[in-house]
């Protein structure tokens, strides 16, 4: 059962993603869409500190950012907390198990921070924005050498075209093409997409009106989790990717290296050599 899924995601001729259609039944999908859409970020969740995800620690509360009627808002939920929504908790646990199985990890990996990191099931609602998540890669370069299996999951709690318009979630395939979910790849509310984290991805040009719910999805980022709270003055600010999508302020040389690493020559030859030089 896992073989065709892994092939689609990881093979050089594969797409770099796999869509589990109707992963959620209509009742569950509708419930989750309404729950997160209606939830006031200030009601249950604590406001995410300005240090962002660098402030996360074992046992920290669930956090939110953004305003109820703003362009973007999100809810960072952790498995160690009493769930705001029991349904989302149960679904998120299943997604994490499935992702781990596809990646070849133990099913329970990164649910709790036994190794200093844990998943947050993050409900993200984007009503509108030109650059919601700037184009970028995660876990590429040296991180890819250490573990090339890393996947991200996007659980659609909306239907592109019906609930929002615009490009939305865009992903580079393993062959270097760019596909937009809801355009080149049909997706609907309740579909789950597992995709290769190191492939270039973005969320762009989202537009919705007052009677649409916007681009609502559950993401599953693996966060570094400190053992104890970290004094705020010792950490720098870390904006979330979808928090307005501010372009990174990388020096020219670093940005150039990132572009080189992303090429087929970079990934297949230069990065492995660089990894060996660094580790010896």
């Amino acid at each position, binding site marked *: 059962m896992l073989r065709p899924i*892994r092939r689609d995601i*990881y093979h050089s001729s594969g797409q770099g993603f796999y869509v589990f259609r109707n992963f959620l039944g209509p009742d569950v999908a509708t419930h989750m869409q309404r729950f997160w859409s209606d939830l006031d970020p200030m009601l249950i969740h604590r406001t995410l500190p300005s240090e962002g995800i660098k402030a996360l620690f074992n046992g920290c509360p669930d956090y939110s950012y953004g305003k109820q009627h703003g362009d973007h808002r999100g809810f960072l939920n952790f498995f160690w907390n009493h769930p705001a929504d029991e349904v989302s908790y149960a679904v998120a646990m299943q997604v994490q198990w499935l992702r*781990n199985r596809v990646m*070849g990890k133990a099913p329970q990996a990164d649910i709790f921070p036994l190794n200093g990191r844990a998943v947050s099931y993050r409900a993200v609602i984007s009503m509108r924005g030109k650059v919601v998540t700037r184009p970028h890669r995660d876990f590429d370069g040296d991180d890819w050498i250490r*573990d*090339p299996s890393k996947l991200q999951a996007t659980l659609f709690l909306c239907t592109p075209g019906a609930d929002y318009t615009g490009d939305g979630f865009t992903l580079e395939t393993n062959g270097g093409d760019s596909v937009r979910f809801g355009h080149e790849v049909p997706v609907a509310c309740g579909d789950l997409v597992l995709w290769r984290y190191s492939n270039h991805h973005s969320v762009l040009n989202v537009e919705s009106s007052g009677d649409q719910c916007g681009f609502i999805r559950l993401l599953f980022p693996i966060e570094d989790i400190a053992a104890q709270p970290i004094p705020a003055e010792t950490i720098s600010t870390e904006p979330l990717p979808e928090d307005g999508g501010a372009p990174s302020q990388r020096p020219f040389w670093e940005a150039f290296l990132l572009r080189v690493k992303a090429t087929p020559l970079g990934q*297949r030859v230069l990065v492995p050599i660089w*990894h060996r030089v660094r580790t010896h």
Partner: protein
Amino acid sequence: MGLDPQTLIDMALAFNIPPSGYFTQWDELGNWQIDILKQHGIKPEHRLLDVGCGMMRLGSLAIPHLEVGNYYGIDPTGPLLALGRVILDRLGIDRPYSLLQSGSFEFEHFGVSFDYAIAQSVITHLSRPQVARCFEALKAVMKPGGTFIFTYLLGNYAPPLGFFMDGVAPMIRPGLADESIFEELAQRLDFRFVASSEPHPSQKVGICTF
């Protein structure tokens, strides 16, 4: 010319084996293995036992270096051995070699004695009784003066830990706070053990002389 990481990943997927650092660090660890064997004097006429040979990472370098038929590999996982054969074919390595699928250290099955043996990240996946059985089995097949090179991990708080290898294969980490288990085995089985200072990308290195 070796195979790049993505090509190895593509080949592994045919056997439903997910990507891992095993493929992306293929050259790094394979070269470490063949280099340390050469540093310790392996010559083409010597016989080599590759314990936990897996997908023939070392085999792909050792088989061309050794005289025909002098490479012997053993591993408990069938799909890894099958992939290893495919990788050797892809690399055009058609010299004879011997492989055995076994997880019970049946080194005597090959019916020869060995000048060298190596176990890269194998001891780290065995229980203490399995470590003892591995060394007992080696003692029976290593030539006098033969060399066994292996890697291991130490930890301050190191109880045995069960874990899933690649999310599917149940295994045990022995939980070693120090090298005493190897020293005790060396004394009981009459071989010399040295905790080597040889550098390794991620583990410690032990050298045994039988």
